[in-house]
């Protein structure tokens, strides 16, 4: 079997995951997309493990670890989403913009500390 085959499937799944993370508004859908990316990575790990015939089975063991960590991540992630939902009544990512810059830019403002010094 050509090595490229699993690799291609992995690459495409990863790209789909990227798209999902970037294009989906619902936080849970974003988490799903993350799972897609993790799976792509797993596929690669296993494929290379088999290809290289690794004596320590590093690729497969790492895949197991990743699956475990993914489970933990999804658990925590959902907890956070639930918390957000409880506080905001929404899980839409583009609504969560508390960190945005709000002041409109002005020309050479006399800044607050300038005022403070001046007085």
């Amino acid at each position, binding site marked *: 079997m050509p090595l490229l085959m699993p690799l291609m499937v992995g690459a495409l799944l990863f790209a789909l995951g990227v798209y999902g993370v970037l294009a989906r508004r619902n936080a849970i859908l974003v988490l799903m997309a993350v799972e897609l990316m993790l799976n792509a990575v797993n596929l690669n790990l296993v494929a290379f493990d088999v290809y290289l015939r690794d004596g320590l089975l590093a690729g497969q063991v790492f895949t197991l670890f990743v699956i475990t960590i993914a489970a933990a991540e999804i658990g925590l992630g959902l907890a956070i989403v639930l918390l957000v939902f409880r506080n905001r009544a929404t899980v839409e990512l583009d609504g969560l913009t508390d960190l945005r810059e709000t002041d409109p830019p002005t020309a050479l403002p006399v800044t607050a500390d300038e005022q403070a*010094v*001046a007085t």
Partner: protein
Amino acid sequence: MTGALIPLLLGIPLAGSVALLLAPPRLGDRVAVRLGVVTTGVTALLACWVVAVEPSTDVAWVPSLGLRLHLGVDGISSPLVLLTAGLTLLCTVYSLKVLPEAGRPRGLIGLLLLLEVGMLGTFVALDLLLFFVFFEVVLVPMWFVIAQWGDTSDAVARVRAANTFILYTLLGSAVMLLGILLVGFKAGTFDIEALTERGGGGLSHGVQVLAFAALALGFAVKTPMWPLHSWLPDAHTAAPTVGSVLLAGVLLKMGTYGLIRIAVPLVPDGARTLAPWLGAFAVVGILYGALACLVQRDLKRLIAFSSVGHMGFVLLGIATLTPVGLNGALFANVAHGLITGLLFFLAGAIKDRHHTALLDELGGGLYERLPRLGGLLAFAAIASLGLPGLAGFWGEMLTLLGAFDPAAGLDRGYYLVLMALAGIGVVLTTTYLVVLLRRVAQGTTSERWREAVLMRDATPLELAVWSPVVLLVVTLGLWPALLLDVTEPVVRRMIGA
């Protein structure tokens, strides 16, 4: 024994400054100012000693970076060291009676002392990075002096002037630092004496040109050279009297001193390539400054612009790369420090009495209502326009003489044109100063000031502060050898003529 002299020279004002700035508020203002006078007085005496002995100090400072605490004075720096110590002393003495309008003289005196550390350090540093450190130390206290103790009538303009000053000069310093690093790393040492000895040896032409451009740009901002001058008028207009005096009297000199001490001898090849440009900017500055002065409305702003013109002469002298030109530049440096210092003292005194420095509001009649101030203003103006027999002349004359016969490798015809244009600048300088006298000093007092009967003419303390300056201006004017004897051998050795 003498090795400790220069560190002491820097340490005393530093200690005074720290003491004043950290002192508890219950220390009275009067005591504080007196402490300042004592500190600057001791510093001035020590400066005289230093200049007489010419000691040097050279110990390791940051060994991992190869930095050394290399300090020393010679004929080029000693006049400026004396000028700095003297003017700072006069400024503190002046503050004994004439307190800043903004109050808090304790902080002002403390900052002046800190300023003195930076200025003296710049003139005695013989290591490039050390020089840079001192060069920068000056900025912060000056920013505070302008922003906190400046013109009380317009707080926003004053803070903006201070900000412009510090941003502009920092920008120049950043470029200068690049030049310093370039020279230092390419040559393998930051020691100014060693680099001067080498005279650019081991540095390729391209490196030298680049280094000179960077260094000159940094110094040009400080000088200031046209068209990098626009921070100066605002800063002067906004600064308190003592700030203006030190700004014009010493700070501007640091730029030209750097050019003479560092840029020209360390990368002579680059200097030769770029000197015509420097000369052209210098001459434009002379003419531009003079023309700008003709239409200024504010006395302090006018004096600030006159500095642009006068520093143009200094730059022209440097651009000739001849011993006579550099001597002229050094002479003009000191003369301008004294004369413009005096002019700013006078402008400050006039502003204190009238609460305005606008020429239209002042009107004429200073001779009539304040004869001593008017007479001194006339004296300072005459000295500033470069009358032979007063200090202002010799610098300009030697500069022009340098441009008449520039260093080998420079285009003589080009420099003759520069000289002729600078000559026109001399006439324009004369014009704006006598026009200034006509507008302010001559004529009759307007109604507005006629009622202000209690206006005091120059007080004894003011006269005591100004008379040493007047005396020096006359002495240097009648006996220029006093300074030239000191600078000439060093300059000659430095450019290897």
